């Protein structure tokens, strides 16, 4: 099976809806179980950090949210390429549906980061490269959603939004490597780095469980939103046909 036939196979909305209905209950159960377990492990079981004390527990929400903020953008950029090149409406719908979820994750990362920054660094906000590039990500999400709303024609809207998404993807490596390329107040990566995680297993495991839970949550909400959008478009075209007297 070539990439092309795989994409066309998924693109059949009826088949996609059937597949997503099969995945949804499992993903939802997984999300609840993992986030529940992650919160218990993170807030109760995990030890306090040797220098940050209990404040380190903000990490269990902050870091997965920041990862998901970037992962969601990767999904949008990937779906935008499929939409632009293979003209797949379902990919365009997926990109559009993912945006508000990504924006929410970005906002959570920024707010929890601010709450963490005050006690540890001594400031709610600084304009260093990591924080600023993350704020730009939030603005990209907002601009992307606004662009979809502005253009009525779905074909033109999808194209414009996809181009914006791809231009904005330049920001992703900047966010990731900002802490290595420049002096920043934000510390470098603790988990995704060349010489292995710099976090003790007792703190790392709750973090990874939370990250898996956030990912499952993302899948659930994304599938729900895609489903709603597919159905909304169907209702729209049925109404159009009714209005034109093609069906009654």
């Amino acid at each position, binding site marked *: 099976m070539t990439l*092309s036939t795989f994409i066309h196979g998924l693109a059949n909305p009826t088949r996609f809806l059937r597949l997503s209905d099969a995945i949804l209950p499992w993903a939802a159960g997984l999300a609840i179980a993992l986030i529940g377990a992650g919160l218990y492990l993170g807030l109760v079981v995990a*030890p*306090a*950090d*040797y*220098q*940050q004390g209990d404040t*380190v527990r903000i*990490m269990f929400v902050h870091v997965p949210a920041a990862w998901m903020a970037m992962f969601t953008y990767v999904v949008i950029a990937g779906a935008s*390429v499929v939409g*632009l*090149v*293979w003209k797949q409406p379902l990919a365009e719908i997926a990109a559009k549906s993912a945006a508000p979820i990504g924006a929410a994750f970005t906002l959570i990362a920024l707010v929890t980061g601010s709450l963490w920054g005050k*006690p*540890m*660094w*001594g*400031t709610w906000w*600084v*304009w*260093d*490269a990591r924080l600023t590039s993350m704020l730009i990500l939030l603005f990209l999400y907002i601009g992307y959603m606004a662009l979809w709303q502005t253009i009525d024609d779905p074909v033109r809207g999808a194209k414009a939004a996809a181009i914006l998404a*791809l*231009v904005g*993807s*330049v920001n992703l490596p*900047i966010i990731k490597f900002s802490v290595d*390329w*420049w*002096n*920043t*107040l934000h*510390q*470098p*990566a*603790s988990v995704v*780095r060349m010489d292995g995680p*710099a*976090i*003790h297993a*007792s*703190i790392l495991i709750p973090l990874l469980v939370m990250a898996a839970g956030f990912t499952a949550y993302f899948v659930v909400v994304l599938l729900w939103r895609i489903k709603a959008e597919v159905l909304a478009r169907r209702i729209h075209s049925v109404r159009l046909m009714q209005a034109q007297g093609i069906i009654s």
Partner: protein
Amino acid sequence: MKPKRRRLIFVIVAVTVLGAAATLVLTAFDENLVFFLTPSELAIRDVDPGRRFRLGGLVEEGSVEKVDDGIETRFRVTDLSAAVPVRYRGLLPDLFREGQGVVTEGAMGLDGVFVASNVLAKHDENYMPAEVAEALKKSGKWQGDKGRNAPDNW
């Protein structure tokens, strides 16, 4: 060439060009994107007294002294090859201590002392329970705040 393939190549080329352009811009802005200067960079740059900037580094071991009025603190910020004396009046963040990374904001005074109006603590990327930190210190595997916070690791 099929239109699909043409569009794919176009997208790949466009994103590559955009990435290259962004890289060039960021490289050109490099000096302005740093959040703070280290003492070594300051020695090369020669910043005018009174001009505000941020100075970052480690609080030098044994350099912290409280002035008798209880408000002013004096310490030296070092990157282990150069050091700058700093004067600061106000509250220090909880993580502030000797050997800890800090970013101070202010300007050089005429006497060569950096007058800070703001001190931020910078912590590293290592997280562990206190018992593990103790065990590492006992077994001699602890690289110390100095090594772990050294500018090379930032």
